């Protein structure tokens, strides 16, 4: 097997081989980075907890001034609880997946380090409304929740934190009974829950969450309404709206939908991006397959006679197969190498611009091997077709 002869053959058909190498390089570049973005997208979706399958989020805006908004909110709660399908109503600000939401900066290590966390202000029904079980500790009781009518100076002193925050602050130690603090206040941890993300679940800070026992009722009030009849959750929204709008004080329901619907809406962009990326990956695999098929077929048709003569002069079928396979593999490897180099540059840009992690080397190797296997499969198919013909057929064709 003479490398010089092989290079001559490649040089003789340089245009189609160059086209094949270029398309393979482009495909490798696109596939590597598309996979990186697809993995990140998939991770984002998987890491968003699946909360509140039986819960509807209500956001109410009281339109009339001069009324006692907190008393009105309590009246709304009582009215909602009178519905047979409703078993729990919790005042919670904000509601999960709602976007935005208050934040707090916690100090750690004697103020040397800070961490921003998402905050929920909620009552003792918050966890039952979301069907969340604590992994350690206990829930608030009614006496520990600071009511909306309390004076501003009265602040909660207890807190429930999520597992991610607990690990960040205390490592493997139990956080129960320990204190966390911000610039103004200390809180004693009484419970740990998992999972929960902040209202702004897309942001990094949304992964660290704490719940403070305090009712925030005012012109804007938000509630979580839990149903004991999951089948009726779609029709529940209408029933809740009927109850809310039947109340005497004029108000506007700015949000009234199941929590999971809000989750899907929030992840809609990621899901669409995932679908588009899968389409892009399939499209490029199709293009590579078509390009390789076309080039290999054209190559074999063009050199069928010379292959036949080589066989007639004593070259064995296996040796011929090895030579041809090696030629195409060399071109494919060249394309894969160029594509890998290009993808490294592109991956750096993705990492800087969008914080998308680079694909692992194993995955890049897998993509390279996939290209090589694809090329060789096509080559072997055409070789098999060629070797079906008799020598006379090939020479006199």
């Amino acid at each position: 097997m003479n490398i010089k002869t092989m290079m001559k053959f490649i040089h003789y058909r340089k245009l189609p081989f160059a086209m094949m190498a270029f398309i393979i390089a482009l495909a490798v570049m696109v596939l590597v980075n598309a996979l990186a973005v697809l993995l990140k997208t998939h991770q984002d979706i998987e890491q968003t907890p699946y909360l509140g399958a039986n819960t509807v989020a209500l956001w109410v805006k009281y339109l009339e001034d001069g009324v006692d908004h907190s008393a009105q909110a309590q009246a709304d709660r009582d009215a909602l609880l009178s519905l047979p399908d409703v078993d729990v109503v919790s005042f919670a600000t904000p509601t999960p997946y709602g976007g935005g939401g208050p934040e707090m900066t916690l100090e750690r290590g004697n103020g040397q380090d800070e961490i921003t966390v998402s905050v929920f202000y909620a009552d003792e029904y918050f966890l039952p409304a979301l069907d969340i079980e604590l992994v350690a500790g206990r829930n608030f009781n009614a006496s520990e929740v600071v009511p909306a009518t309390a004076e501003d100076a009265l602040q909660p002193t207890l807190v429930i934190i999520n597992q991610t925050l607990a690990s960040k602050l205390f490592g493997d130690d139990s956080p129960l009974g320990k204190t966390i603090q911000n610039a103004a206040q200390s809180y004693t941890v009484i419970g740990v829950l998992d999972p929960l993300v902040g209202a702004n679940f897309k942001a990094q800070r949304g992964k660290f969450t704490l719940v403070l026992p305090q009712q925030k009722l005012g012109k804007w009030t938000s509630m979580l309404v839990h149903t004991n009849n999951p089948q009726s959750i779609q029709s529940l929204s209408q029933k809740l709206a009927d109850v809310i709008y039947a109340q005497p004080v004029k108000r506007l329901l700015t949000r009234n939908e199941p929590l999971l619907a809000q989750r899907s809406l929030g992840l809609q962009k990621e899901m669409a991006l995932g679908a588009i990326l899968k389409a892009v990956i399939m499209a490029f695999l199709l293009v590579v397959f078509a390009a390789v098929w076309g080039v290999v077929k054209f190559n074999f048709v063009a050199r069928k006679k010379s292959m036949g003569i080589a066989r007639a002069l004593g070259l064995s079928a296996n040796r011929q197969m090895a030579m041809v396979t090696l030629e195409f593999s060399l071109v494919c490897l060249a394309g894969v190498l160029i594509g890998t180099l290009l993808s490294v540059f592109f991956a750096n840009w993705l990492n800087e611009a969008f914080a998308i992690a680079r694909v692992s080397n194993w995955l890049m190797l897998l993509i390279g091997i996939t290209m090589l296997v694809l090329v060789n499969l096509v080559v072997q198919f055409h070789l098999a077709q060629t070797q079906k013909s008799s020598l006379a057929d090939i020479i006199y064709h």
Partner: protein
Amino acid sequence: MRLSTLVCNLKSQSLVSVLVVLLIATGLGAFGTTYSVYHIMSSNPMSDVQHDTRYVTIDDWSPDKDLQWTPPLLSYQDGTALLQFLGASKGALTYDSKLVAQHPNSSYVYELTTRATTPDFFSIFHTQFKYGAPWSFEEDVNRTAVVVLSSHANKVLFDSSDSVGQLVYLDGKVYTVVGVLTEFEMTPKVYDLHVDPYAATEDLYIPFHTAIEHDVLPHGRLLGWRDEPMSGFRDVLTTSMIWLQLWVQFDSKQDMEAFNTALAGYTEQQSLKGRMLRGHKQFELLSSAQWLERNQVVNGDSKLLLMLAIVFLVICLVCVSALLFASYATRRRALSVYRALGASKRYVSSMLFAELTLLALGGCVLGMLLTALGLSYMEKLYGSSYQQVASLDLTPIVIAAVCCLFGVILASVLPISQCCHSKSIYIRR
């Protein structure tokens, strides 16, 4: 040349035929989707009237701030003063807001997007009325509490019936419905590019002066640079805060020049009062195209995606060309038999073009389906504000299909000509 013969020929090279169709469809799908989005984003819905419709800007901004930035809005003082200079020309002084609407006989309330505007808005932006008509300028100046509903608002409040003359509560105040629009869409929303150029048009339209009277707060931007004390909405009216937009439409060039002269005189006068401190051109009358350009409505992402899609389409067409080369090389003997039996080169090329046309048509049909699918995913990717942008508009899709067909023809010229114009007939045996 029969269709059955062509189909038979294609079936004999079934894998290549399928690959060619899929390549054309994929290339067209990607190009069609991105071009469709780009076409709508970059279109100018006001292009047919741009020669006589202008957007007015006045530069009363701080000389210490970025001199490249021209304030895009007007203050209340400037907007209302300029309305006096219009004469017979039309002017729409407008801002956006949100109001809570309630049918008098229902406890349900709805928060609806609102545009406070002088009545010329409806004629300048070519709205059509299904019921009723807009209010008059006198009614506007007299602060009459009237409202024009969009078809969506009319459906929500009055179940799509003729609601002219009916009462509706807006933020607790009683308004009378004087008109209902037909479906009014404008993408991008040329008359208001600030908050969201691709948002849907408003649900409610109320007189400008009535909105001021009823303290209807602006929902969009409220910008200022001077340190002016404010305690409420009424104070905004006396400050230099900018928040209004003024569109003017002229019947003739003379009217435009007259307005231009009046505007120059006004800014000169204001300059003497200590305003217009930036020293350079103090006002502009921009056409809709210039206004779209100024606001850079088409974002960089769309342009990049379009370029990538064009590159992808070219790659697909190059692959089609390679496949055709290979396919015709395999069929050389069969085509030579045609030639030996008396078929001319022209006949053979026509036959190959006809086969390719069948494949291209199949690819285009599949490609258009993929485009429709792609647009639905683009809408989800960009959010609800892109609903108008990612809508299925036939014009750009047809343009994309025609471009793709043209590309396929170009890609096939070399393989077909090489196949048909070879000098010898390759038949041996």
